[in-house]
């Protein structure tokens, strides 16, 4: 049997450890981690973002956030 589980860094239990401590319990913390990890820290450490650049988040954003502008902001380009 092959069992696959859906997993994403924006899920509430993503950083939950044994003993019940959740290091990113607040949604804001998880969103911040997603932006800064993919678009700022990884760029700084390894020279490119850890994002494939498919652009679906830009096309499908229900509130019309200019995601590329946020990328530039977290990288200190704005």
């Amino acid at each position, binding site marked *: 049997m092959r069992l696959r589980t859906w997993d994403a*860094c924006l899920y509430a239990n993503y950083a*939950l*450890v044994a*003993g019940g401590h959740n*290091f990113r319990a607040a949604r804001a913390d998880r969103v911040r*981690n997603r932006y800064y*990890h993919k678009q700022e*820290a990884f760029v700084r450490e390894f020279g490119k973002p850890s994002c494939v650049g498919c652009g679906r988040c830009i096309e499908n954003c229900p509130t019309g956030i200019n995601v590329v502008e946020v990328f530039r902001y977290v990288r200190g380009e704005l």
Partner: protein
Amino acid sequence: MSTEIPRPQPVRAAVRHLPTGDNPYVPAPARVMQVADLTHDVRLFELRFHDPRLAESFTFRPGQFVELSVLGVGEGPFSLPSSPTRRGTFQLGIRRAGTLTNYLFDHVVEGDFVGIRGPLGNGFPVERFAGRDVLLVAGGLGMVPLRGLLQYLIDLRDRFGRITLLYGTRSPELVLFRQELESLARRGDAEIVLSVDSTQGRPWAGRVGVVTELLDQVEFDVARTYAVACGPPVFYKFMLEKLVKAGFAKDRIFLSLERRMECGIGKCGHCAVGYTFTCLHGPVFSYWDAINLPELIYT
């Protein structure tokens, strides 16, 4: 006794090969040699790799960890409470906490096989401790990784100066490795001070109070001492402040952090903290590095 341990590795984007397998996702089978209860919910498992060559060559840095898996049940990260100076077997100190650990406690007995991937993480900078004094501060289950370091320091006793261990738990029956620590203290190899939050009516010769207070009880020369702390988040919150107030430079305080390491090789991102990976850059950080990372301790 083998004293060679792997050198610290530069951090790359991900680990591609491990001593337990060219494919870092594939665990190597290891046999459970011995099982011993440390407390009512913490158990010490002694393991040996099935492949005799791997069993003899497997080494690690104190403070590193491994991923233990049981087929069909799950996988989890566990720190190593044994020292790399003692080859052939290694130990894991495990608390009953979830699906995998419940299975380990209820079904895994001596002679069974489990899967191991590792060693993972950076480990303590023991090279820098040479010729210096070392102060270990443990809270609760934080004793598990520090016991591996303590064993390493004791096995190579003449390389280091004074060794002091301050260890606090909630109550006397939760003290891990109690007999071993008491006999070490009697032999004079290390100065060991134990404390409990409350005795709860049990016999107890040590101190009563929180572990942070122990820092006032011992004297040390902060100019030649490295401090190593390991414990739950609330322990760090008070202990680190206390160590800084006692005069320790922030780059001479090391802490081992607990995070949800799932792949252990820098791929999955579960252990990302302040945009570094605990499994690659850590789990051991100096306080100097830690204090600049958001959400590292104060959550």
